[in-house]
């Protein structure tokens, strides 16, 4: 179990990580999401004891990483961001060295090294110099280094960057497999990866945690409207008047004319209304022929962008509170925030104009 309590990291005056707290339970696979420079790597480096937090506590399986580093670090396998390796060693030598560093018992060492080599599919290259390996193999060697000694906690900083699609699926499956026995934290900015592998997502932006939840909940939470994508043949241009016929419709947006004479629209409604049935009934009466009708899915991507964009990020505590509030209140708050942003923008534009006049 990993407990991060009120951790802050400052570099001079800039705050890289700002008072974050979260826990990761045993056997959880947690995704760490955030734009570049959000503080993902810094947080991971602090959890692994590579750098020390300015304030706060990090506890790994009951051991404080700053006070009992030896015990705490024994429980961690870490694959750093840029895949650092000793290029002058062979794969096997490197993994054995990592095993020694991790204090794997002497009599078990050989066997465990062989196990990891097999598990990671490195047998072909085990006697090759790491210098001569391809990127994908290097990544796997690095991962093998993190897995040796089967630590309880595995921390992977962007494990799939620079791999080809086949290798990516391999590594993902492997991580899923790992999640059964170990606690895994991985950082990434590939969102589909998170929704595939992770049970929990921590979204971090500008050093602050802005959401902790399951990927599904995040998608649901940020969904304010239902969207229906519609492709129709509409010779009499009756689509414009549809809004009068069906009052639940908030907006009808024309997307494009298709080559075959059909038109594409997106119809939006409140999130609690599903109009698909009604559309099927009413459109034929209006002499509109439906070619295609489907619900637009909100993805984690939308959720992510929405959460990052709300510049007034609530801190974690506020976030927890706001979860308890009803969805309506949340949406109200969000529109308020957005309004504020717009106001701010207008102000800045005005100021700019004033300056220009001067």
């Amino acid at each position: 179990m990993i407990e991060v309590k009120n951790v802050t990291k400052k570099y001079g005056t800039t705050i890289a990580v700002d008072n974050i707290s979260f826990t990761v339970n045993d056997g959880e696979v947690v995704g760490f999401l955030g734009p570049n420079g959000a503080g993902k790597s810094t947080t991971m480096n602090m959890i692994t004891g590579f750098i020390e937090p300015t304030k706060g506590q990090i506890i790994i399986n009951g051991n404080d990483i700053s006070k009992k580093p030896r015990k705490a670090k024994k429980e961690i396998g870490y694959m750093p961001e840029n895949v650092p390796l000793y290029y002058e060693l062979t794969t096997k030598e490197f993994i054995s060295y990592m095993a020694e560093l991790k204090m794997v018992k002497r009599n078990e060492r050989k066997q465990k090294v062989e196990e990891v080599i097999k598990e990671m599919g490195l047998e072909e290259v085990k006697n090759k110099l790491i210098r001569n390996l391809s990127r994908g193999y290097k990544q796997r060697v690095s991962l093998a280094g993190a897995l040796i000694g089967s630590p309880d906690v595995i921390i992977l900083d962007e494990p799939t960057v620079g791999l080809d699609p086949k290798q990516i699926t391999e590594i993902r499956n492997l991580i899923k497999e790992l999640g059964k026995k170990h606690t895994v934290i991985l950082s990434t900015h590939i969102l589909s990866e998170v929704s595939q592998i992770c049970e929990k997502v921590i979204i971090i932006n500008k050093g602050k945690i802005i959401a902790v939840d399951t990927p599904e909940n995040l998608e649901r939470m940020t969904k304010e409207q239902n969207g229906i994508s519609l492709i129709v043949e509409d010779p009499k241009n009756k689509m414009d008047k549809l809004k009068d016929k069906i009052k639940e419709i908030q907006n009808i947006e024309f997307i494009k004319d298709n080559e075959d004479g059909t038109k594409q629209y997106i119809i939006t409604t409140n999130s609690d209304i599903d109009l698909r049935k009604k559309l099927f009934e009413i459109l034929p009466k209006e002499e509109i022929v439906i070619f295609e009708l489907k619900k637009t899915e909100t993805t984690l991507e939308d959720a992510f962008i929405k959460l990052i964009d709300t510049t007034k990020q609530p801190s974690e505590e506020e976030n927890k509170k706001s979860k308890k509030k009803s969805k309506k209140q949340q949406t109200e708050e969000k529109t308020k925030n957005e309004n504020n942003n717009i106001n701010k923008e207008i102000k800045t534009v005005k100021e700019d104009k004033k300056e220009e006049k001067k």
Partner: protein
Amino acid sequence: MWSIYKKELKTYFLSPIGYIAIGIFMIMYSIFFYLTTITYGSVDTGNLYYATARYGLLLMIPLLTMRMFSEERKSGTEQLLLTSPRSVTSIVLGKFFAAVTVILITLVLSIIYAVIISFFGTVNVPTLLVTMLGFLLVAMAAISIGMLASSITENQIIAAIITIIALVAPWFLVDISSIFTSIDLIDKFMKFPYGLISIADTVGLISITVMCILITIVLIKRRKAVK
């Protein structure tokens, strides 16, 4: 410490660095062997070690120490070391003793020359051993200085230059003030070739070594908090 020591020593001989360092020693030693021993027919070995220490170490030590921490930092492997359960002290000592071992190997090889001399005259074995001890102590102090230099920069070349300056500067600074003799390693080596173990010099060399190792450890620990 042992695992880091083993790996570092192996790395010295997987790359050409270990061989080059030993080669430099042998070339220097051979040149002085020719210039003094053969030319004058002397049986004095002390002079050979003194000259090699003065000029050979200037090249050998930066070679051995410049990569120690600079490269780990640059390539990021530092992260692997510092996130392992090993303490900073054991990492620093492991690296230090690996470099010392290379020096020990050269000293063992240098015995060949004493054997050659012994065919033509008598070698004063106790003096030879004392000289070698002195050489080792000087080399250890120089390694610790080089290690410290390597821990403060990511750039190997800068680390090497700092090391060379730290070794050479005291020779000239002595002209400004006699205080600088206390950091002149070669000055502390003067008495060993005569078979004398001077307590002051021995303690001086050992304190420089210990001090530099301690500063290196503190610096690396400190960087964890600042970085």
